[in-house]
């Protein structure tokens, strides 16, 4: 790791000010990706500003049909939260599949969403549950937030404070792990919201997380595994690597979607 300066931000204003006064600063969440990258010397921020202790980024609450989660909430906290488990069990379950227990104890929801790794899990839930990403500069609807792999609507000095997920009538997450890294190779989140079904895929899309509207339409007419099982995905829109070709990933989407629908009940 190259030399860097570490600072703990005490408030949102403090964090933004620290970033602005740094030469090439970066906000630090749980650090499970950023620190790993810095160790490889593939990133060299002059300053890292730890935002995880800022009061606005804490807490889990259920209000007005939404589950609102502070951005600094760790994956372990999400996975173990009774409020989340009773409001959106699929979200708690998803959190319990991220990384491994030790990683989950450090990694934060805000960090994952800010990074928007195309193989991350939370983006699938955020997009499917019509989440609102609340930041220091306002709000982003999930639909507008994920703009490409590792790309989001966030500005450099914008901090995610909270994420509000719509409580679905039912939802489920079906994860297919990359056998080596344990990231998602192809995972599907299905949800039935008041305004209809949502199907999102992470780990496979060329542009990161995406919705499968054709499946959503099919589920609207018939919420059953069979409704999605035969809907083909174009391999040209899929990622490929040594762990799975585009064709294989395209094949997995309907398989996993059907399982998720079955799991959601």
């Amino acid at each position, binding site marked *: 790791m190259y030399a860097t300066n570490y600072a703990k931000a005490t408030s949102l204003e403090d964090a933004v000010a620290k970033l602005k006064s740094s030469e090439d600063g970066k906000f630090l969440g749980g650090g499970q*990706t950023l620190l790993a990258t810095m160790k490889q010397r593939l990133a060299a*921020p002059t300053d890292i500003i730890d935002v995880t202790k800022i009061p606005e980024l804490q807490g889990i609450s259920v209000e007005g049909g939404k589950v609102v989660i502070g951005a600094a909430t760790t994956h372990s906290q999400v996975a173990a939260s009774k409020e989340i488990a009773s409001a959106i069990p699929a979200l708690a379950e998803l959190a319990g599949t991220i990384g491994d227990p030790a990683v989950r104890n450090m990694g934060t929801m805000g960090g994952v969403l800010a990074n928007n*790794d195309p193989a991350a899990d939370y983006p699938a839930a955020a997009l499917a549950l019509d989440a609102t990403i609340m930041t220091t500069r306002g709000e982003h609807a999930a639909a507008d937030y994920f703009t490409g792999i590792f790309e989001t609507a966030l500005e450099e000095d914008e901090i995610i404070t909270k994420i509000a997920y719509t409580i679905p009538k039912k939802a489920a997450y079906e994860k297919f792990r990359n056998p080596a890294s344990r990231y998602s190779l192809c995972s599907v989140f299905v949800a039935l919201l008041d305004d209809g079904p949502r199907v999102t895929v992470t780990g496979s899309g060329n542009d990161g997380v995406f919705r499968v509207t054709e499946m959503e339409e099919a589920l609207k007419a018939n919420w059953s595994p069979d409704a999605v099982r035969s809907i083909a995905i174009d391999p040209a829109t899929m990622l490929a690597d040594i762990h799975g070709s585009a064709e294989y990933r395209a094949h997995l989407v309907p398989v996993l979607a059907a399982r998720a629908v079955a799991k959601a009940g």
Partner: protein
Amino acid sequence: MELSGEHRIPAPRSVVWEALHDPEILKDCIKGCQRLEKLNDHQMEATVQAKVGPVKATFEANVDIVDPVAPERYTLTGEGKGGVAGFAKGSAEVILTEDGDDTILTYNANAKIGGKLAQLGSRLVDTTAKKYAADFFATLSEKLGGGTPTAAPAEASGAATTAAPVAPAADDAEVAGRIEPSLVEEGAYELELAGEETAIDSPHMEDTIEKAIEAEATKRAWGGPWFWGILAFAAVILVLIALQ
């Protein structure tokens, strides 16, 4: 890895060709491009700070152009060195075809990445390369979509730019002035341009090159050091392929 793509650009071929040769337009289209500098007729260097997720690596790129046939096709070879991150190298063939008022740009790139990026992050190589290429064309199309490509250089901000803004109708003297003598001595170059026999094979005296550049610049109907753009385009493909 193989990387290919086809993009429709809402502008006539000559405009696209021209734009692809305009360093400022290209610099704007290449995300993170901090510097584009011409070494001679067919070589340029660029500095690109590539950023993907948490990874941020600065690549120094060198690109050569081979067999250009204006305004239809050219081949690029090049290399980007990213220090501890590794390197990227490869070649790309770019073909422009007319399709009504639009231009179809097709490219086939063959690239290799090496070092840490290859070892640690093969999972995202393809995607990232595609993404960068897509970004490049999106920005390019946006710039050309209005049909006023010549307006693009005005957007260039001067602050971080080591290369002086050069409009498509470049000032020859200015172009020549940016040749760095120390780099001109690198090797023997052979450049065959679109039916015009302009071989440069003498041992690269600065003035020889300078003259050749001037000669080339005046020969092009659209004027300007067109190769810059091509070279920059190669740089983006090659360099960006290396990103995770």
